[in-house]
């Protein structure tokens, strides 16, 4: 057997084109398909019968699966209000296992059928040229005839005006997308209208109370103990209608108290805190996730999305992670009743950087 291909005269690998030359392409010639090995079921009718039975058992299992699905669907029934979770999991399990069995039964049965009983002779088919030279000549000839008949080459005026028209015609279909941002139509406040300017402003302004998120209760400076952190929203946010989440997305603040002596304060910001109570924007300056993790001992703020870490003792400067600038600080003070209020809006835009931020 081995010698036949090796001596290489019976099987010229003429079919291996692209080689071009007469020299043999590989160390031995293509020995052709290996001989077919009959399977058990090909020769033994008993084995074939056995395979037939196995396949139909799989199909029966599939039927059992479908029945199981209906047991889960009607047997477990509708989930009532506040009913135990276990019922939902049981139903989901029965429906899923039923479907799985129904599908597996058919799938494995059919594949087993194909593998044991259907012919397994490998067959050979020729490949054809993807494009023949004759076709190419005919097609290009046809195209030049078509172009000639259309006269588009002879009449450049036609061609140029058509190009101009075709370039302009799609523009309306781009322009109609302008109102994807239809905020002008809704908002009566100039600051919320179309354009980047609205990103500079939040609800915070002089005298706006800091209240707890989400209850809306005001915060006394004396209530904020050393080491604590409070999630804060501006007073009045909860009364907003449809605009609530848009405003909340910019205005959320984290309030923390620590020993003011530990903080390096830049000149001009000395009175932005109230006895070591600092208010910082909770919106990450990286891509805008809420920075919800405060590590009391190190005074670090960590964004759970991409792990940007801000150091409260350095005015929330970035000390690790992908954010590239510090969290904006909200200047705060106390009002006559001892509640924390904002001195003004943030002095810079909050959240992720955008082109017009400046």
């Amino acid at each position: 057997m081995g010698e036949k291909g090796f001596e290489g005269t019976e099987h010229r690998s003429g079919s291996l084109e692209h080689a071009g030359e007469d020299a043999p392409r590989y160390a031995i010639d293509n020995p052709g398909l290996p001989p077919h090995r009959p399977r058990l079921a090909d020769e033994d009718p008993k084995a074939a019968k056995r395979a037939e039975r196995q396949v139909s058992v799989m199909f029966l299992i599939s039927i059992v699966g479908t029945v199981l699905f209906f047991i889960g669907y009607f047997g477990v029934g509708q989930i009532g209000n506040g009913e135990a979770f276990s019922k939902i999991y049981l139903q989901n399990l029965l429906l899923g296992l039923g479907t799985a069995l129904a599908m597996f039964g058919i799938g494995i049965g059919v594949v087993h059928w194909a593998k044991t009983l259907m012919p397994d002779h490998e067959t050979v088919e020729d490949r054809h040229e993807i494009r023949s030279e004759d076709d190419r000549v005919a097609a290009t000839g046809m195209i030049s005839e078509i172009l000639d008949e259309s006269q588009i080459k002879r009449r450049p005026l036609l061609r140029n005006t058509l190009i101009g028209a075709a370039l302009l015609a799609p523009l309306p279909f781009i322009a109609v997308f302008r109102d994807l941002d239809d905020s002008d139509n809704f908002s009566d406040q100039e600051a919320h209208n179309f354009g980047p300017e609205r990103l500079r402003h939040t609800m915070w302004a002089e005298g706006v109370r800091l209240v707890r998120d989400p209850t809306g209760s005001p915060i006394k400076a004396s209530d904020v103990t050393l080491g604590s952190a409070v999630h804060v929203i501006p007073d009045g946010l909860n009364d907003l209608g449809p605009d609530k989440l848009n405003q909340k997305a910019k205005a959320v603040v984290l309030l923390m108290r620590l020993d003011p002596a530990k903080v390096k304060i830049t000149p001009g910001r000395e009175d932005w805190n109230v006895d070591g109570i600092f208010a910082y924007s909770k919106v990450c300056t990286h891509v805008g996730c809420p920075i919800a993790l405060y590590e009391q001992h190190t005074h670090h703020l960590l964004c759970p999305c991409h792990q940007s870490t801000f150091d409260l003792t350095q005015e929330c400067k970035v000390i690790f992670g992908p954010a590239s600038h510090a969290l904006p600080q909200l200047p705060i003070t106390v009002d006559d009743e001892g509640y924390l209020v904002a001195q003004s809006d943030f002095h810079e835009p909050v959240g992720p950087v955008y082109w017009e931020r400046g």
Partner: protein
Amino acid sequence: MSTTVNEFQPATTTGRIANFVDTRMGMSPIVKFFGRKIFPDHWTFMFGEVALYSFVILLLSGAFLTLFFDPSMSEVVYDGAYAPLRGIEMSAAYASTLDISFDVRGGLFMRQLHHWAALMFVAAMSVHMLRVFFTGAFRRPRELNWLVGCFLLMAGWAAGFTGYSLPDEVLSGNGLRIIDGILKSLPLVGTYLSAFFFGGEFPGHSVIGRLYALHIMIVPAAILLLIGIHLFMVVVHKHTQYPGPGRTEDNVVGYPVGPVYAAKAGGFFFIVFGVLALIASTVTINANWNYGPYDPSPVQAGTQPDWYIGVFDGALRLMPGMIGDYSFLWNIPMPWGSSVSLPMGVLVPLIPVGVLLVGMCTWPWIERWITKDNTEHHLLDRPRNAPARTGIGVAAVVWYCVMWAAASSDLIATHFRLSLNDVLYVLRALFFLGPVIAFIVTRRICLSLQRKDRELVLHGHEAGVIEMSPEGGFHERHRQLTDYELYRLVSFEDRRPVPAIPGRNGKVGMLEKARAGLNRMFYQDRVAPVSREELVEARTHGQHGHEEHPVELEHGSHAPHLDR
């Protein structure tokens, strides 16, 4: 016009129906064309099928979900079966998601089936592409079909992301928030892109409806169209096949569609369906009733995006925003006084992802340019026989996996009790070193495997039998390979380096120099297939071990590995 005189008259009812259709639509030629069409069979050809079937299951389960899902961001008060959230204000989208899970029988199963099928769809496409890449199946004439495949993969990501964002709970809302941050970071147009996408400020009231239109119509329509083109081209090209005895560049060896291939492929659809149903029934995915309605304030630690989004998220995490006191926020003053902001911390991570995507789409042309190989290939490469390509592929996979792992940096740190910062430092180092090491190691492994193949061809299998010659020397007997085994090992192309070719002006341009350099890298330490002369030489002058028949193993012959 009595054409009816000689017309075929079927005898049975089925025959009459079939004949009716045939005479109006001309089905006979189609049956003739496909009925016995040959498809090569190999287990690695299965992944594309898995992707296709997952997509069919996505369409089926997705159609069910659309009947119950309400893509609206209007506020409602939840009043469904899930007690912990009753009485809470939420969007209609989230409320209907909860209803699908708890109030619609089978809804939870369909949701989980849909989600798992989506993960499987993208995973199967990815593995399918790796198979196509490593076996060189993208080469002429299949470059365009590779490109269609790349678009399909990206469309799969888009379908996944738009679907992931629909339920409008805290997790998906934070995903959208990240998209908002990335959009805003884009120079010049970013702020407006974000405003157009969200209908004003984030989160707005429009985005769920828009994502829904994308998710159930635009993206699936694109995927269907691309699948149509993809399969059409498979028929035009006919399937590739692995090299082996009986297989040539001019034939297709395999099983006919009817009945074997149709039965196997059709049966396989049900098996894929069964696997997904089994997972959907036993493994909870996206238990979004735990998260609560979207609110810009809360967030959960340790959340993960769907796996295929990980690479983007990981790239974002790897980039440092500041090095020491140097910030990657670039404020560039403009001549008219104001300045513009470029957050390079967000923009730079888009580069490696872009390189991966563009490199993937253009690879068939890049490789053709480097190797100058413009011949048609219908026989696949064994990965070892294209060491440089295999090396580059593994390098890209490693690069991808480093970015992907970075998306779980926090979970890696908590699971293995490591410092979060250290995990990221190591991943940053691997981002640069990983692909280089992977390329070198993979290429060396390929070359070694090729040498092993040569060894096998020239000297045969070690039989594990030690013989002593009359002179007292020892050698191990070798069993000669059969022709079928032999042909598989020797029948690969002997590709040779193509040095720099001077241009029309007789000079070698910069680009051509670069090409020649890459070409050298491709063929460095090239292992040629065994030639006819070498084989003759080995067989005729080889000292020992070229028996034509398998050696009977002697009882208890556990011979150590000795040299010939």
